[in-house]
């Protein structure tokens, strides 16, 4: 398993797409936070959402793309046979990919969350607010939980569809639909659908974001369990598909 993890890590470092994704997420996260500093005529209440928008949107998009890419790159380049010729225990290869597809986005989002936190506080205070980092710190674990649940599900969809396009389309459908069904305080704040509606609201009338859409309120624990079951099911289905398929 260690060898499989090292191999996947080398691929992530040596192949270009992860670097581009990382760069995009950094620019979006830091850029949106810095842009909030210079915003005019905003009430301090709307600043945190505005500052965190880049991290939320780019973080989730980036996670989905990266998770799908982890497997789809092997299919598109025809290197899956090479990977399985070296390690015929396919579960090891797939689980190593799943671990990296989940852990790396979590690390990136957590670090960027910490980097943008002081910028967010500075932005709020520069607009007449009175905040400390402790006020916004819970946003980081909320985003991390969301990433931790979304990444394996997207990776599983990549395994099931076996293509970058199919995996991303399926992932976006899932990201859009799931938060609509299960919206929970804290988790929902970090969901893509809320971030997008927030962006639309701010672009249209410059108002603070409003939670929209029909949402069924459930307890955070049940929501977490359902989301974890969903992610686990996608991963298990994808794994079963790859294990049972002839590589031709």
């Amino acid at each position, binding site marked *: 398993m260690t060898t499989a993890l090292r191999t996947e890590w*080398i691929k992530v470092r040596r192949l270009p*797409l992860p670097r581009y994704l990382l760069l995009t997420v950094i620019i979006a996260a830091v850029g949106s936070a810095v842009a909030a500093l210079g915003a005019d005529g905003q009430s301090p209440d709307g600043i945190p959402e505005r500052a965190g928008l880049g991290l939320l949107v780019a973080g989730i998009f980036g996670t989905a793309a990266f998770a799908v890419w982890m497997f789809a790159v092997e299919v598109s380049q025809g290197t899956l046979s090479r990977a*399985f010729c070296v390690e015929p225990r396919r579960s090891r290869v797939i689980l190593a990919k799943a671990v990296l597809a989940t852990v790396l986005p979590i690390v990136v989002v957590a670090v960027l969350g910490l980097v943008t936190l002081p910028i967010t506080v500075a932005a709020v205070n520069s607009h007449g607010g009175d905040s400390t980092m402790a006020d916004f710190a819970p946003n980081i674990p909320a985003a991390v939980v969301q990433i931790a649940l979304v990444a394996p599900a997207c990776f599983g969809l990549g395994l099931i569809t076996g293509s970058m396009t199919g995996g991303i389309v399926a992932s976006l459908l899932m990201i859009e639909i799931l938060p609509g069904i299960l919206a929970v305080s804290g988790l929902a704040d970090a969901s893509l659908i809320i971030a997008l509606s927030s962006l639309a609201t701010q672009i249209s009338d410059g108002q603070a974001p409003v939670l929209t859409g029909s949402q069924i309120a459930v307890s955070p624990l049940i929501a977490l369990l359902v989301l974890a079951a969903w992610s686990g099911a996608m991963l298990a289905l994808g794994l079963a598909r790859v294990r049972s398929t002839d590589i031709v």
Partner: protein
Amino acid sequence: MKTTTAPIQLQHVAKRYRHSVAVDDVSFTVPAGCVYGLVGPNGAGKTTLIRMLLGLVRPSAGTIRLFGSPPGSAGYPAALRRTGSIIEEPALYRNATARSNLRIHRTALGLRDDPRGDDELLTTVGLAEFGDQKPRRFSQGMRQRLGLAVALVGEPRLLILDEPTNALDPVGIAGMRALFGQLASRGTTVLVCSHLLAELELMCDRVAVMSDGHLLADGSLESLLADAATLHRDSHSTQPSLEDAFLTLTNKEIR
């Protein structure tokens, strides 16, 4: 450690799909240290057979052993790590440099980084000056060479190569033939699938002929040519070639 077990053993191997049979009751053994040719027309089942050997396709029937270990057994992963392969198109990360491709494969084999070893491999296949370039910019022949370099990482005891001379120029083909000879002289077993019968005749010790999923013949090159000479004593005034033997066995005529 000297290898005593035959690197490849196939017994009554078959692969059946819902509406077709790709490989049917094929048995042969590839002894250690030889260059073994596998020839057959398109659709003969050669590539499916190779994929079964490498654990990518599950056989419907029969037994496959790689260095004595069947797929799924505890010893099979170790047997695969002693095997280098190219199946049809070489499997390369086109957006990673040639050196990165070698490094990724080296890591997957559980080996340490070896930049000098990578340079030697690139020199062996004639790509010494292209180590920092990406295969997407390579010609097909260069990709084929890099695929061979990847297959040679870790000094495998068995090479399974499907059309390794595909897209190579005559100099490249001659170089590869010499390389296979060197490898075999050091005890490496080479299984080569190719349509270039004249090339196989120059490089192989033993040959198996397949057609429509069946094994038609298997043996030393000399015995195969002798059989062909016997069958066509009247029509051939000279010693028959592998191509004559192939056409005779597969009942094909040159059009």
